[in-house]
């Protein structure tokens, strides 16, 4: 798909700011979960009733680190396009999880996105936030200029 030139230019200018939104959210949510025992995040995931307990705990160890490192990469502009793709993938998974919980009528008071220490969002609020961040991450992924990024800096001779 060919991206119009004006859109491409605008995106190149806006991408360094745009990528801070999914970057910061992933950085904060990952950090707040990574500093707590993984069993806490595992319990939040169990409330979605999608995966068995045996699978949830290993995932609860990995996902916060994935969020944290992806967020850090996006904020600093390191491996930006890969990080943006990963961020879009993470948000797509979160959207699917939250969506199925709403369709099934599960009454979750807290989405568990920020662990026990951060803001407590309802599934509807989290779904809206994830949708916006998913689109932002996709937009960043389409930008190939990577202005104001560590990628640019490391590419210098």
């Amino acid at each position: 798909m060919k991206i119009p030139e004006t859109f491409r230019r605008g995106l190149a200018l806006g991408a360094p700011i745009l990528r801070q939104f999914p970057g910061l959210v992933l950085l904060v949510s990952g950090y707040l979960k990574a500093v707590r025992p993984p069993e806490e995040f595992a319990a939040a995931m169990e409330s979605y009733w999608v995966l068995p307990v045996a699978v949830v705990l290993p995932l609860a160890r990995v996902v916060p680190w994935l969020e944290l490192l992806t967020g850090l990469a996006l904020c600093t502009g390191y491996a930006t396009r890969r990080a943006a793709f990963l961020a879009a993938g993470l948000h797509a998974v979160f959207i699917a999880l939250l969506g199925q919980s709403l369709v099934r009528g599960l009454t979750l008071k807290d989405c568990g996105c920020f662990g026990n220490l951060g803001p407590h969002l309802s599934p509807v609020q989290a779904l809206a936030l994830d949708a916006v961040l998913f689109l932002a991450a996709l937009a960043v992924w389409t930008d190939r200029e990577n202005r104001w990024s560590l990628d640019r800096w490391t590419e210098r001779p």
Partner: protein
Amino acid sequence: MNSGRRRAVGLALGAAALVAVALGRRTPFLADDVPAYRQKGPAGAPVVVTEYSDFQCPKCALVQPDLKNLLAQYEGRVRLEFRPYPLKSHRWSGDASRAAEAAGLQGRYWEFADQLFAHQKEWADSPDPQPLFKDYAAAVGLDPARFEQDRTGDRVARIVDAARAHAEALPVPATPTFFVNKRVLVGDLQLQAMGARFIERELEK
């Protein structure tokens, strides 16, 4: 592309994340202030299971048979410490916790707690559960006058407020939450799936 610089930057970012998480991690502080009437099992047991529970929380009631089976399985090697965490979102939790403390002062904490969990729906849905608490007190053989005096007194109120403040400060993420020594299990499902494994690991140390 300067691949050496790129690799160094990647490593620096990863190291920064590791250091930040290591600095942010805290070992749970489990104060040694659980009164004797809320402890079950030998004093020098190698494993202490600390239960944070809310009498009005359905999962806390649901998990009781599993917890009792676990304690029976490791009898003599595990001590249970019960810490009430009356959630503010539950209307009668605080009253139930105060009633249980009053029962504890007469040495009948566990019997009264069993009554509260067994009849949870009855008192939780009641517009005024106080008469029901008196019935449960009578059923476990408490002195009714002393029970009433303690239940409504300042001493018990202070104990319950302190227990709630402790749980909030930790913070306990949900009820029920269990610590097997210092390892956490959140919820009934995790206790069922991993409780025995966690105890075995602690016993092997």
